[in-house]
């Protein structure tokens, strides 16, 4: 783990640090805090979804911690001075061996863990020594359709609101479970695994609605975001990613900054024939919410299942971001990261909502580290791109044209059947995939897990025959420049540059966490859980867990008043499929070419889901 400090931080050290940071923060940036949603009960009878976070309550109520998706906790008992003393407090085994991507939740002295398939929900009692299991809820997703689901069997977590835990099962159900008793309150089927649909994302709850999106773009699924009434589980609205305006919920209130998004039924017109009907654009990533503007933000996945040459057009509304009214689902604006996607750059990453000083003016923005290798800053009221700067090695484009909003593509990295194309960077998982970043209002930095992967495409033969087993794609991935496959970056969204970067052997496929103690946490696929000094990136502490980490770290205050850090270990996911799925390392194209880049992972980690909880002695 070679460490590179790219640029010295201009901040003072030690004693002067806290003050400097605080001043800096006030001057420049402030994380948006979700406001108490008016205190009124919704028509569904569920109390306001999220408690006010004006003051840190020491809990963790949704995977991204807050509506602004900052993954910042105000807890500061664990700080840069004492983090090196962190010790394991207790552990918990899920007994499962597939990829564990979820963030645990902590509410009312109970810690909740959602497992990968079969998506069991464990409630662990933090008031008792060793946090014994209080109850377990087993949704028993269908196993009859084995192998029908598209991707891996991961789950990215749950959300708490009004005394209930909400989460999704791989077989397309959203469930509401009584947070105290583990009793199922409702269970609603949203999609069909028989059509290749599945759900892996963590929902959020906004104004009494549970927001859920589907996965399965590779299978000819049509993407959607669905809002369910948190009280009853009834579907309130559904917004498709492709198709006529009525299906996409585009009405008179839809006013995008760029002209290419204006016109009737572009979700049909920007596709050949009826390709939009199976056009992908699934919604398997993160959702943010701005209570002031009353808008939700989420990204859409890549177009499918046609190859690029077979779907001329911009393929709207895939690979982009929607701002919508949470009550009705009506779209307010849209922006497309990758028009006519060529490289499988799903546009589903997190959107971190910040109030940022841009050219001397305080603006409501969203900061978005995108798969294509750029950190975008968008005006979150209008969808205008204010800046887009590369944070990784990129060969597929030469920049983003701010006037048109479109990327300036490099024609020589366009994959074509019958053609060998080398050095496609970033590779399909992007410079950063789903693994969510964290933002600290104290340092003003965004902490981004990431990949350094390129890909060769050898489209020499397409020998798939309907009714016979899938042969695999002819893509193979490998480390980008430098030879490290992963990177962890601290990014200054105001100065628009990396402040420091750490190289990692494997892609950093875990989420990030940052605290008011100025400690950043993340995990590596070879099983190291690390604490860094937030301003400088200096390593403060690390611990080797049982299996590689692809989960999301969280922190909470226990009933004993102590601060704890929790992380699920259990390698898997797309990047870790070579271990979790026991892929054949000789098959370079397995896991869509990802296995080629991960050949040595089995030498560094084995499977097994385990929750680790750390604290100071």
């Amino acid at each position: 783990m070679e460490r590179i400090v790219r640029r010295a931080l201009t901040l003072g050290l030690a004693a002067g640090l806290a003050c400097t940071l605080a001043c800096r923060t006030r001057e420049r940036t402030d994380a948006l805090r979700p406001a108490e949603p008016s205190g009124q009960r919704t028509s569904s009878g569920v109390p306001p979804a999220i408690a006010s976070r004006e003051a840190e309550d020491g809990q963790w109520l949704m995977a991204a911690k807050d509506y602004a998706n900052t993954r910042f906790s105000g807890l500061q008992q664990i700080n840069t001075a004492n983090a090196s003393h962190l010790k394991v407090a207790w552990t918990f085994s899920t007994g499962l061996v597939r990829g564990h991507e979820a963030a645990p939740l902590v509410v009312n002295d109970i810690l909740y863990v959602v497992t990968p398939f079969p998506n069991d929900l464990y409630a662990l009692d933090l008031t008792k020594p060793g946090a014994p299991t209080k109850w377990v809820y087993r949704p028993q997703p269908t196993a009859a359709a084995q192998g029908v689901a598209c991707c891996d069997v991961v789950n990215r977590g749950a959300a708490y609101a009004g005394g209930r835990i909400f989460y999704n099962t791989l077989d397309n159900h959203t469930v509401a479970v009584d947070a105290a008793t583990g009793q199922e309150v409702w269970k609603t089927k949203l999609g069909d695994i028989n059509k290749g649909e599945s759900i892996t994302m963590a929902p959020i709850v906004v104004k009494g609605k549970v927001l859920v999106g589907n996965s399965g773009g590779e299978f000819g699924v049509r993407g959607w975001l669905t809002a369910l009434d948190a009280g009853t589980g009834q579907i309130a609205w559904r917004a498709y990613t492709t198709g006529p305006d009525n299906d996409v919920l585009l009405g008179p209130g839809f006013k995008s900054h760029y002209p290419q998004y204006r016109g009737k039924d572009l979700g049909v017109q920007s596709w050949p024939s009826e390709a939009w009907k199976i056009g992908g654009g699934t919604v398997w990533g993160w959702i943010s919410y701005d209570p002031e503007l009353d808008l939700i933000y989420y990204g859409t996945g890549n177009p499918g299942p046609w190859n690029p040459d077979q779907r001329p057009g911009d393929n709207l509304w895939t690979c982009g971001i929607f701002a919508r009214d949470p009550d009705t689902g009506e779209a307010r604006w849209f922006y497309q990261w990758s028009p006519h996607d060529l490289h499988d750059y799903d546009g589903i990453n997190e959107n971190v909502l910040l109030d940022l000083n841009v050219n001397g003016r305080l603006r409501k923005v969203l900061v978005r580290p995108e798969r294509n290798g750029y950190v975008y800053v968008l005006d979150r009221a209008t969808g205008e791109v204010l800046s887009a700067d590369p944070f990784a090695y990129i060969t597929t484009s030469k920049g983003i044209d701010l006037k048109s909003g479109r990327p300036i593509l490099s024609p020589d990295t366009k994959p074509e059947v019958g053609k060998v194309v080398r050095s496609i960077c970033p590779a399909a998982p992007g410079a950063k995939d789903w693994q969510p970043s964290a933002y600290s209002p104290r340092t003003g930095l965004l902490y981004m897990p990431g990949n350094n992967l390129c890909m060769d495409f050898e489209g020499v033969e397409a020998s798939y025959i309907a009714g016979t087993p899938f042969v695999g794609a002819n893509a193979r991935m490998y480390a980008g420049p430098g030879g490290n496959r992963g990177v962890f970056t601290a990014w200054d969204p105001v100065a628009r540059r990396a402040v420091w970067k750490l190289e990692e052997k494997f892609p950093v496929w875990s989420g990030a966490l940052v605290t008011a103690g100025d400690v950043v946490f993340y995990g590596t696929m070879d099983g190291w859980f690390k604490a860094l000094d937030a301003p400088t990136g200096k390593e403060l502490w690390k611990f080797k867990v049982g299996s590689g980490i692809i989960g999301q770290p969280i922190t909470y205050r226990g009933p004993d008043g102590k601060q704890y850090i929790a992380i699920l270990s259990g390698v898997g996911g797309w990047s870790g499929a070579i271990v979790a799925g026991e892929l054949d390392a000789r098959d370079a194209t397995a896991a869509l070419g990802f296995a080629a880049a991960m050949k040595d992972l089995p030498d560094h980690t084995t499977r097994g889901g385990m929750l680790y909880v750390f604290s100071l002695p």
Partner: protein
Amino acid sequence: MRAKGIFLLALLVLPLLAAACAPDAAARASRELRVCADPNNLPFTNQRLQGFENEIAALVARDLGATVRYIWWAQRRGFIRNTLNAGVCDVVMGVPSSFDLARVTRPYYRSTYVFLSRRSRRLGVRSFDDPALRKLKIGVQIIGDDYANAPPAHAFTKRGIVGNLIGYTVYGDYREDSPPARIVRAVAAGEVDLAVVWGPLAGYFAPRQQVPLDMVPVSPQIDLPFLPFVYDISMAVRRSDPQLQEELDTILEKRRPEIDAILSRFGVPRVGRGAIARGGI
């Protein structure tokens, strides 16, 4: 007492001895050919054993002195990984002979993609280069956006025939019987003018439609630079199992007439049968 004890002991031990003395017989009786297959994929396999690969598996097992045991798994991405290469079965029927995820037997048939259309239309399309294709509504099967789509989609794209293609995902809706057959029904129903369909699928489902359909092998057989439309088909065994491959090769050679008869009964169009040599293409 003592004599009785010995007698009892003999009762217990004798069958064991007998079994130990005849290991071949015991092994033969218990030999199992574990076949991983899709439970809903006619005309190839289904859970009711109505597919031609079900029949061929039974034929081969008989010669091996084994009984077939099926392990059912939907044929999606990860099929080979989760089945054959996970060690839960010995054989997967019907893979392309160029398959590189496993060890393959000698081919036991060769088929081709076909143009499928309603007979009443009298389209007469025989080649991907027929100019009529630019005006027709054409159905093709598609699988994914990972540059590994089925060959017909690529052949049309290469010729700039894009706007008039209708894609049918081979995965379809798994609640229906044999989801890949939907493209054949689409031709019969007039949803598309013509479709390009893998021979065994067309050969089995076309005669079962309400209207007569015409089936014409596509040309060219190999679209240059290298996009084949004719494939040799083999069985797959684990890479580490050359012994089973040899046994199967011998049986496939010996039972060729019986296998041909099964394929004929299921309407599988075959091409260049004489050209199939040991070791594949």
